[in-house]
């Protein structure tokens, strides 16, 4: 049963149209919402939360209409905004407890769950210091904690990796994956960075200029092309020759060699060829389509 459903959802502002007859369905799992800045991702989330009214069209969350049953939806939803939203003079614990109370948890449950959640997102002694002194990574964790503390059925994360360094990004992505895999909470995560969503989403929705470009599962996007890419440190020609004489069709793609991956024997052949030539094997990976390729595909005018 789809968790989120929109039907011809439109949102017009005086100057621009943020969403244009968007119709999507989101199943439980991790759903990535991709689009450039200004594509309409944040607007969609705000409409789903009832923070902003749609100009036309319908949207429902858990089967409840967003305009009529807003409060009931908001009881079961967590929201992590893109912008800074944390007061500087309270500690993380105080703040998350307060937010838990604002979500309807009784005082004791609020305190208990806050302690749990802060541990899950990775805030330990820091949680007692004022938020004003936190690093960006810690602040993002607090934002995530307040979205999760009331055990929602779905969380909407708006650009959660903004401002994080590469290690912080990885940590956040892993955490997001855990939210679905271990906590069982559906995640709607937006980003303008395609590479990240590849790694963690089950389903990807691509929006551009408020219209839907593509909506399909990640595995479809990144079908293995059944090819093997290798890159060696030297003597690429010699290695290619060895492999060709072993019966494989070798294509040269710049510094890389592309081999058809028919069975596991190919790995053995590569290993032997490389060892025989005495060179280093720099890269050995399966060739895949990347999400970025769809933009190339679909910007040719192929719409929904």
């Amino acid at each position: 049963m789809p968790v989120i459903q929109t039907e011809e959802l439109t949102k017009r502002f005086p100057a621009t149209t943020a969403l244009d007859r968007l119709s999507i369905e989101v199943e439980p799992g991790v759903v990535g919402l991709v689009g450039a800045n200004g594509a309409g991702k944040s607007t969609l989330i705000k409409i789903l939360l009832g923070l902003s009214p749609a100009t036309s069209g319908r949207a429902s969350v858990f089967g409840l209409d967003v305009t009529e049953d807003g409060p009931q939806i908001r009881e079961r939803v967590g929201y992590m905004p893109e912008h800074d939203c944390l007061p500087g003079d309270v500690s993380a614990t105080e703040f998350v407890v307060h937010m838990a109370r604002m979500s309807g948890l009784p005082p004791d449950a609020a305190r208990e769950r806050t302690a749990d959640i802060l541990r899950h997102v990775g805030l330990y002694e820091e949680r007692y210091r004022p938020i004003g002194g936190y690093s960006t990574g810690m602040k993002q964790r607090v934002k995530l904690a307040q979205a999760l503390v009331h055990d929602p059925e779905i969380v909407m994360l708006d650009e959660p990796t903004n401002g994080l360094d590469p290690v912080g990004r990885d940590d956040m992505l892993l955490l997001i994956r855990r939210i679905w895999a271990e906590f069982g909470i559906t995640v709607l995560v937006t980003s303008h960075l395609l590479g990240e969503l590849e790694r963690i989403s089950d389903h990807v929705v691509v929006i551009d200029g408020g219209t839907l470009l593509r909506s399909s599962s990640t595995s479809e996007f990144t079908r293995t092309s059944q090819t093997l890419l290798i890159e060696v440190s030297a003597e690429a020609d010699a290695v290619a020759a060895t492999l060709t004489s072993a019966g494989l069709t070798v294509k040269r793609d710049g510094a890389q060699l592309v081999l058809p991956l028919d069975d596991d024997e190919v790995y053995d052949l590569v290993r032997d060829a490389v060892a025989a030539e005495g060179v280093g094997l720099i890269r050995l990976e399966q060739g895949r389509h990347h999400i970025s390729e769809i933009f190339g595909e679909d910007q040719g005018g192929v719409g929904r």
Partner: protein
Amino acid sequence: MTEQPSGVIHDIGYRKYDGPRLGRARVTRALYAHSLRGAYGLGRSARAKVLPMLLLGVMALPAFIIAVITNVTSDITGGLPLPYSRYVMVTMPILAIFLAAQAPASLSRDLRFKTVPLYFSRPMERSDYVLAKYGALATAVFLLLTLPLLIMYVGALLAELPAGEQTGDLLLALLGAAVFAVVFAGIGLVIASLTPRRGFGVAAIITVLALSFAAVSALQGIIRYEVGDADLAGWLGLLSPATLVDGFQTWVLDASSSSVAPPPGAAGGVVYVLVTFAVIGACWALLNLRYRKVAVS
């Protein structure tokens, strides 16, 4: 709890929440309680407590002195040196400072740090937020006004002044204090909601309150005593919140007037009542309007 470097996610297992989820009404009450405590600095840093507690003390001190004086002179004077209902006007500057300091403290934080969307993405409507904040500050101001009155009451009882009369006067004064609280809290919040800068909010509130009071009182004085037109002076009292509610109190609750000129006649009295309620209604409407427009980014 084991100490781990913050990069590592600790896996103890996630627990679902099956407990009660309190609805809008309870959540609004929780925000009300939180804001009320915040108005007196409870639940915040030690420095936040200093000003409100100090003001509470300064507010109560004259009442304490009055109580003592009453006990000493009760045989001679047979009553309180200052009627209950006049206390608020006498201590108006302190009330004004409390309002100017705490109204922005209540609202500016959420506006400045853009925490407001987090509230509205929860089962809380905009009007609930406004109700909680308004109610909390009005209650805080009411408490500020009530404490000295209670001190004076106890002093009066100890001086063996007639209990029935004192209780009656006290209750009327409390009613007046309630109206003062609601009107002033409303005005303070409306001004505070217009700016995320706390300092400017404080200055704007005090300017509106102090300047209006000074200007209206001066004008009233001149018009009443130099020109001799007590009625016009009375009408002028509508233009400042302090004289407005004092006029309301004088006419509706039969209190002794602290203003230069009371509401002129029955027509004046009715107008004062209408304007008082109109001001409260306008504050409520403006606050709701303001929070509907808060940019939800």
